[in-house]
């Protein structure tokens, strides 16, 4: 039983190493949707608000929400963009913590 588990742990370490290797990009999207009641299928009709793509080589790309102001000019929808930015911050923080935890697992297993 212990040998089987040791093999499983080694497989986990290998998988984690592959995940870390593949994690070269992070994408955060924010959408909104109008649904009736709690119909989960309604989420498939969600419309995008903003998107941020962050690459580990330092490149990043953001699609920002715009709206027309009273003068008819396009301006950034600050409220929606701040909402999206909050999600981006949460994602960046989470990713940093998870990567640290995974890398510490690898070093602990040798």
């Amino acid at each position, binding site marked *: 039983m*212990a040998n089987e588990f*040791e093999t499983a742990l080694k497989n986990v370490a290998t998988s984690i190493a592959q995940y870390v290797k593949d994690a070269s990009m992070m994408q955060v999207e924010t*959408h909104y949707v109008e*649904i009736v009641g*709690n119909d989960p299928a309604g989420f498939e009709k*969600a419309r995008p608000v903003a998107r941020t793509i962050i690459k580990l080589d330092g490149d990043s790309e953001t699609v920002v929400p715009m709206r027309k102001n009273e003068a008819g000019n396009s301006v950034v929808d600050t409220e929606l963009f701040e909402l999206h930015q909050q999600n981006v911050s949460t*994602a960046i923080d989470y990713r940093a913590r*998870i990567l640290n*935890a995974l890398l510490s697992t690898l070093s602990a297993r040798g």
Partner: protein
Amino acid sequence: MSLSVFRYWDFPESSGAPAVSFAASEDETTPAATWRLDLPPDHQAATQALDMYASQAQASLQVLDALPERVESLVSRVQATDTAGLSFSAAEEPDLPSEDAGLLLSLFEIDRLAEQVSFGLEERLPQDWQVSYRQFQAAASRLLRSISHLAWVETSQGGQLLGRTAVGWAGDMQTVYLHALLPQQVGLHQRSLEVALASRYALIRLFTATVAASSRISLLLATPGGALLSLPAVWKYGNQILSEIERYKLVAAR
């Protein structure tokens, strides 16, 4: 897992929420882990509930951060007093916390049985060990599914869904909010998402801390393969310490 910091995670065995792939490693047949939190309709009560869950998650992480030092201290203490190896008396020290004493007794039992049998040791270990072993295996399986596949975070208030976020293993996120939510309702989902991710991270830390502590604690065992044999006992030890902290937080919150 009975710890409240993890109890809103649902890890379905064979079917679940629809899979949305973020990564090449995504297996669309694997059901997604889902965090479902239904908050009270009153905003202040909802905020207080989130504060409590956030506090529990934070306390759990602090305990897990301190676990290596606690294990190291225990190992040093036993090595200083029991130069001939682990003995029953090590667990009877009057100032030893009950969780530490329980761990030492489990380790002593492993060594004692190892002296009596040359093979098939795992099958002869106490029922308690077998139960802890199965719990650790199940938790490890849940953890792997949690971190290697998509997870959903859903927040409701008074039964009304506010938002849903799909979280990839490495932080990719796709959030959908209901149209025309109040800013404070948007804030509730964002806070719920933070607590869910802190809880997910705590689960990973519990797992990695258990593996590392088992490696360290095996120094006390004379049995070959002690790190693996001690995994269930150390897993139980970590959970007991977390439960104790949760009880303390609940009493303090009253």
